[in-house]
């Protein structure tokens, strides 16, 4: 019987909830593992999970400098979608979407993936055509996409300003029905528990402070909890990628770390059915199951590793939210936080072998990290296990920038803050 079920909840309720086991163990590090994954966030944990589940590699440690899931997996706006423009990205995020759709069952952990759809609003005929191009690209790769018109949109989102007199009037939108939101922490915890139950050691408060090397080859990590040897070392450190690789002497990645702020309002009765984005600027909003409006916008726009943003961006995001939903002016902002994004030079990620022998690299997630979690781990595990990329992540190399084989989703070029 599954560890978690309605039945187990009742059984435990009767016994006063005294028999629940820890979701994951708190083991001490072993001297060596087959694979050490650096980063106990969504991507690192899912990598470990799929290494164990798909490739039978269970002698794995995930090392995390803070508490599990303390990075971006717990700091995002929980949106899951695969509405990308470029085929490489569509294929990647569609793979992720399919894993999402069965993730709760796979993990026996309710990650609350709710496919309530994402709607991208267009405000000029030109923008509408851009969305049509994107939606058609998705359809040509087997994804789901529909165009909506203002009357349909007004019915879906009461309170949305669809007046033709609006500064940026709504002329239509692109809907991906299968998109939605998931409970971000549950994803980290679910993968952690799944990996743990398959034998993976999750080592929290275990910061990497150096690499063990034999010649060029990486053969393990030095951590605040001692040296750990590994046949393979996989880096899944997102915003901290630069800091980690610097320990291996690499300081020329096509990555900048930037802060992205996110916001939650006080709890409200249901008012937003799905995820909706505004095209007059850059804003995305949904409503959590608890009732808070969860929203965000642009990056602050400067290099930083501090998980704190500044006020002008806060004001910008609030203004844009109200340009969409003027009725939310009296709703109150409850919390804000910042996550450090690993912004790449073309806005697309890197999942690859190398750059050093014995090392594997997963980074460059920009805004896309949370929704990528299952596919990122699945493909990274494949790449680690087989020492070669899967066909889906084969385009996401590190050398593509120098070679000019870019996957520039927004066409902004080597200016990371614009992706």
């Amino acid at each position: 019987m599954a560890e978690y079920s309605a039945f187990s909840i009742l059984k435990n309720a009767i016994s006063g909830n005294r028999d629940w086991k820890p979701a994951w163990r708190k083991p001490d590090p072993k001297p060596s593992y087959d694979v050490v994954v650096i980063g106990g966030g969504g991507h690192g944990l899912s990598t470990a999970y799929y290494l164990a589940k798909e490739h039978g590699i269970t002698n794995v440690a995930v090392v995390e400098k803070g508490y599990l899931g303390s990075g971006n997996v717990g700091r995002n706006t929980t949106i899951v979608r695969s509405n990308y423009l470029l085929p490489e990205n569509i294929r990647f995020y569609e793979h992720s979407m399919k894993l999402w759709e069965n993730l709760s069952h796979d993990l026996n952990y309710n990650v609350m993936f709710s496919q309530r759809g994402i709607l991208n609003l267009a405000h000029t005929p030109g923008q509408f055509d851009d969305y049509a191009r994107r939606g058609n690209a998705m359809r040509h790769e087997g994804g789901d996409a529909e165009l909506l018109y203002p009357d349909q949109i007004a019915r879906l989102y009461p309170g949305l300003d669809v007046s033709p007199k609006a500064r940026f009037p709504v002329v239509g939108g692109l809907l991906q029905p299968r998109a939605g939101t998931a409970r971000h922490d549950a994803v980290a915890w679910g993968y952690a528990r799944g990996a743990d139950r398959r034998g993976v050691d999750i080592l929290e408060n275990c910061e990497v402070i150096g690499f063990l090397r034999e010649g060029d080859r990486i053969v393990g990590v030095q951590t605040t909890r001692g040296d750990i040897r590994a046949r393979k070392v996989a880096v899944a450190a997102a915003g901290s990628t630069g800091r980690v690789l610097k320990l291996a002497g690499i300081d020329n990645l096509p990555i900048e770390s930037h802060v992205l702020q996110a916001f939650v309002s006080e709890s409200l009765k249901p008012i937003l059915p799905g995820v909706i984005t505004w095209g007059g600027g850059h804003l995305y909003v949904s409503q959590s199951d608890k009732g808070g409006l969860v929203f965000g916008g642009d990056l602050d726009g400067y290099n930083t590793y501090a998980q704190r943003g500044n006020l002008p961006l806060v004001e910008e995001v609030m203004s844009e939210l109200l340009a969409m939903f003027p009725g939310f002016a009296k709703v109150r902002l409850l919390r804000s936080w910042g996550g450090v994004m690993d912004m790449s030079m073309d806005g697309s990620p890197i999942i690859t072998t190398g750059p050093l022998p014995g090392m594997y690299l997963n980074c460059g997630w920009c805004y896309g990290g949370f929704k990528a979690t299952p596919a990122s781990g699945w493909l990274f595990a494949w790449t680690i296990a087989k020492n070669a990329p899967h066909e889906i992540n084969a385009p996401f190399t590190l050398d593509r920038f120098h070679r000019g084989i870019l996957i520039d989703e927004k066409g902004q070029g080597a200016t990371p803050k614009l992706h």
Partner: protein
Amino acid sequence: MSPRRGNTAGRVDRTRTIRFSFDGKSLTGHAGDTLASALLANGISLVARSFKYHRPRGVLTAGIDEPSALVTVLKGEEREPNVPATMLEIYDGLVVVSQNRFPSLAVDVGAVNGLAGKAISAGFYYKTFMGPVIGPLKGTRFWMVCEHFIRRAAGLGSAGTAPDSSRYERMYAFCDVLVVGSGPAGLMAAKAASEGGARVILAELDSRFGGSANWSGETIDSLPAADWAADTVRDLSGRENVRLLPRTTVWGYYDSNGLAALERVTDHKEKPGKGEPRHRHWSIRAGTVVLATGAFERPLVFPGNDRPGVMLASAAQRYAAEFGVLPGEKIAVFANNDGAYAAAKTLRDSGAAITAIVDVRADISAEARAIASAVGGHLLLRHAVVATEGGKHVSGIKVQGFDLASRRLTGEARHLDADCLIVSGGWSPVIHLASQAGAAPKWDETLQAFLPPEPAQNWIGAGSFNGRFTTAEALAEGLSAGLRAAGGNGHPEAVPEVEHAAPFSEPAPVFEIPAKGKAFVDLQHDVTAEDVRLAHREGFISVEHLKRYTTLGMATDQGKTSNVPGLAIMADALGKPVAEVGTTRFRPPFASVSIGALAAERYGDIKPERLTPMHDWHVAQGAKMYAAGLWYRPQIYGKPGETVEQAYVRETKTVREIAGIVDVSTLGKIAVQGPDAATLLDRVYTNMFSTLAVNKARYGLMLREEGIAFDDGTTWRLGEHDFLMTTTTANAGKVMQHLEYYLDVVWPDLKVHVTSVTDQWAGAAIAGPKAREILATCVTGTAVDNATLPFMGIVSGEIAGVPVKICRLSFSGEMAFEVYCGAGHGTHVWEALVEAGKPFGMVPYGLEALGTLRIEKGHVTGAEIDGRTTASDLHLDWMLSKKKPFIGSNMLGREGLVAGDRLRLVGLISLDNRPLNGGAHIVEQVDEANPRHSIGHITAVCYSPALGKYIGLALVKGGKSRHGTRAFISDPLRKRFGPVEIVSHHFFDPEGSRMHG
């Protein structure tokens, strides 16, 4: 007067009666009341329902830390949900309803959740609702069905969908010293700093300045504390260098001592004054910040601690002393420190009976003991409250012996009468802003509280904020902080004296009473002590995991009363000191702030409208305006009954047959001046400009460093050292920054100045076979014939008495001229041109016709220069000079940029005589059911009157090699499929004979 309202105490104005309604019931209060004090005065204690179990809840606090008493304020169609009754000042006509209950506050069916009890403890939803793995409810379906009901049960108040009629504003402020909090410490700091000559802002989140001075009952400088505070405020308000901000919550401490504050300007008024904002968003830049934010009292955790009638001791004291309201008539006290004794005294003095004082400690101070005997009632030391009794209000309590050392209950529980229980579990300094400023707080074992960290920015703490809880200490620290902030040495001469000081002691280290029953830690989110222990059992032991797993501290009050008790219970479960369990860093906002306030002046005015000099003419002529970035441009000048297509086809035909005039003022224009101007242009354009003769123009292309196409436009040489560069409308700002960057950072040796002159010039383009004739009829001072004004030539002249510059250039393929004049003369010249064109039948044309003309000519714009295409993709290789390096020249040849399968520009002709759609894809084989194998997409479409066909531009793999072949459009989104012929993008007059002729 209600029995709960005393006759004298407090600062409410008993001569002014205020009428308001709560859940449809008309009630009265007095000026100066909060909703909470007014409800209590009316004997109403059931105010709200909790989030999860829908338990009845009352008023716990008297301030911004309130977890329970949340209401919705209605103003017509507008709703403001989740307002703490403790912060809501009543006014005549105030309409308030309770929330999160159905059908009513007293009878709420949601309370059935409480029966599920332990089955819906913390984190239960992660473990269930996953549904079957096969069948119609597989995947995410089952969860989504369950979620539908969960969402409806969750949430608190309802937001409105009607736009808010209020006005919001922002204010930037600068000061030497920002004092946050106006209790005795803050007032002293503000006074001292202002006397030192500093520019001071004093912000107080309450409507009254004074903080605890308003209700402590102490004496400062021989005056009742409240009077001392009032005198001090009066003194400050008379000073030029002091700005007092009441009802102002400083909620964010950002980098470089930038603070954000929310002033509630008119929330307490029935109607705002003319032009008065509801909220003012203050963005304050302070030299030094004095944090005198005080402390929050903590409740104790015991079964039944959430029942209406249970209140923090300081809150009860404040209601009695500041509002003249008694929260009960038979009041019991439960404490682990001396502070609650002062509350008991105030309540007794205000007319309530104290039935018992229950204290977990064995020993209390002599002062406390003296108060206990003075107020009467039982003094039960080494005792604890183990339950409250009653339905929707406290009717009694159960007490039992308690051993502090073992923290075990002893003896039998017994009943005591009470209609109100006031509790005190110690005090937590309000260190949120200090933590936001960039450091983690430190646990103090003696005070059982987190104290502020070492300053990571320029702030000074004072008073309870620092864990200095007595008024005497607050005054001394405030004075010292004020002097230091104003640049002094911080050694005060004389500190005001405090008499009748309230007793103070460190609290006994007790947070929870281990008795059976639901004991709440987070009252709003219904997180119980048992939930915290469950989180511990399941390994969610780091503070962040505790919060996220149980939702402790995530409610609207952000855990102001619950974080520390929750942490202490976790520490106890772990068998570790609190210090080792840690605390979370606080992030903005300190307390929730209206989204409207943060949007401020941009609420209802998100972006300025940018208008060309001829805007009003276009509107007057019935043009349909199109938002292009911030600009507005005519889309079509439609005639009655015309569709958009009919209008642009008519306009386009007229241009091709006669002439048309279009407003091109939005094009970016940059003056490039200086001895090295030509050198700069050679470096930023792919083609050569140094060879351009004066009074000639040239079309130029710019790349980004990566070798990708960036922008295009014509640049005019007006003089040896003087160029006028034009850019696309969309990229004007970017190109300007691009040039400035290279001049400042990369080539500082170049003597070139660039200035945006977009707004200096009005631009009108006249195109068509009759264009030259029309011009000739209205231009004076120059000829416009082919010799004087050849292709790409520039002349100066006058039109209707206004100097103009005319350049003969064309994007339409027709004989065309761009006429530039000073923007202030734009309409004047435009009208003269229109008048000159009338005899010929010239028409004004809009963006659609402009687009059609350029598509017919195969000119690229932003849809093709989309940040991914190269010059070669767009067949602009001929513009890449081989004689000189330029930005991007060294990156052009990389393998990815010259790969054979890149998307390249082609033309398309619809073969089924139906319109094409922008954004449609191109395929070799149509598969409507299962679209796949896209080879490209359409970037621009139109009906071409010149060809009599629907045509488009597209980016397609293979590009030119497909010319003359058939393909299909595949647009499953709009269900449009059909055959097209791929052709050259030069649809019309490829030799350019018309424009050169």
